[in-house]
């Protein structure tokens, strides 16, 4: 159980999941399209007033990112659960929580990172510019891994449960509230000229906290689901 074999196991999982994602590119593309569509709906709903759009912009982008993350959660463990790979994962001679980190990281690369990369483009629709645009990207970069981490707990809890799609939303959305507040808050405060650093560091704190607690809770939930 050396350190190198631990990294080997994580690397193995990440590599396999990314390979699988490459084979099924449409899955990853779907959540990105979802994000683009949801974000584009808001100006149509509230009207094209630039001042209004600038005010709601950070919140809309963040809520849309959050929903896109939520939609992709079902993919984290379900396929592995159905085809039996998850059993094998639990029986790997490494702590399960460590493997969970690998799974979540791969999931973030597939569904979180595209959101981060796309956000500058989308924020142009809302007239965000300059510094606040950078803060938005930073906040998403710190926030979306946290969303994936927390979401993994919910995804593990509802494995194989009927109505799991809706249930996972009910479980996970309340847990997303702090990330949403700090994330959108960072952009808003940088637009107001007070700088987003404080909010960003709080987002970082959330990430660290979720990195410590979420894999462990997810591992417990996975074992329960497999009994």
């Amino acid at each position: 159980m050396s350190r190198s074999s631990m990294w080997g196991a994580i690397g193995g999982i990440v590599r396999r999941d990314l390979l699988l994602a490459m084979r099924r590119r449409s899955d990853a593309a779907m959540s990105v399209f979802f994000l683009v569509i949801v974000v584009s709906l808001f100006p149509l709903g509230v009207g094209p007033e630039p001042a209004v759009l600038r005010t709601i912009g950070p919140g809309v982008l963040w809520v849309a990112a959050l929903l896109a993350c939520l939609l992709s959660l079902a993919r984290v463990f379900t396929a592995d659960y159905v085809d039996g790979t998850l059993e094998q994962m639990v029986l790997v001679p490494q702590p399960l929580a460590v493997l969970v980190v690998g799974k979540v990281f791969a999931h973030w690369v597939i569904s979180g990172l595209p959101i981060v990369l796309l956000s500058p483009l989308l924020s142009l629709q809302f007239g965000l510019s300059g510094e606040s645009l950078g803060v938005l990207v930073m906040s998403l970069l710190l926030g979306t891994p946290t969303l994936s981490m927390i979401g993994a707990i919910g995804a593990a809890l509802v494995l194989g449960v009927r109505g799991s799609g809706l249930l996972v939303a009910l479980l996970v959305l309340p847990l997303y509230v702090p990330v949403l507040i700090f994330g959108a808050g960072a952009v808003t405060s940088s637009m107001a000229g007070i700088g987003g650093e404080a909010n960003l560091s709080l987002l970082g704190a959330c990430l660290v906290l979720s990195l410590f607690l979420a894999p462990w809770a997810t591992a417990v939930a996975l074992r329960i689901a497999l009994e």
Partner: protein
Amino acid sequence: MLQAVRLSCRRGERRLFSDLTVKVEPGTLLAIVGENGSGKTSLLRIFSSLLPPEDGAVLWEGEDIQQLKELYSGQLTYIGHLNGIKDDLTPLENLMSAMALAGEVCSQTEAQAALEAIGLKRPIHRLPSKVLSQGQKRRVALARLWLSTRPLWLLDEPFTSLDVASTGIVTERLHAHLQRGGLGVLVTHQEVDLPTDRLQRLRLTG
């Protein structure tokens, strides 16, 4: 040595078995037989540590597997009722990623040799697994047995959807494992063609 001490198991309201004590010595195989729903798979999952028993304990070399945790996982190869095969990956990729995950990294040549040993020819190695038949998928999962260096093998109905020839090949492999001093626990409803001194049968009545 693998021991089950006064195990009991309950699924939902039903008590599957209780007070079950059994011992598997190195070089022998325990074949669990019984009707559907008698708790064969549950017992195997208890042996694998996936399912904690309601009561009693499983001991590996005299130590409780619940305490050993990852140390115990490092001693076993488990092939469950599900194959653990990804439809989008080729048999070769499946086998290699499964071995890498288990911490027994193997080279491509070794993996190909294993797949050939179980009767999957070269051209099949590079097809997506979704085009394979049930029997072929089962063989991809079982190919791990040719690469595994673990002393304990836990197999759930390994011969399902295998033809007679493949069943023979797997049985031979099993025999070789036992001869090297390995242990095995097998859930099956078929006769296992192994020497009687290496075979112990446990019938669950449910």
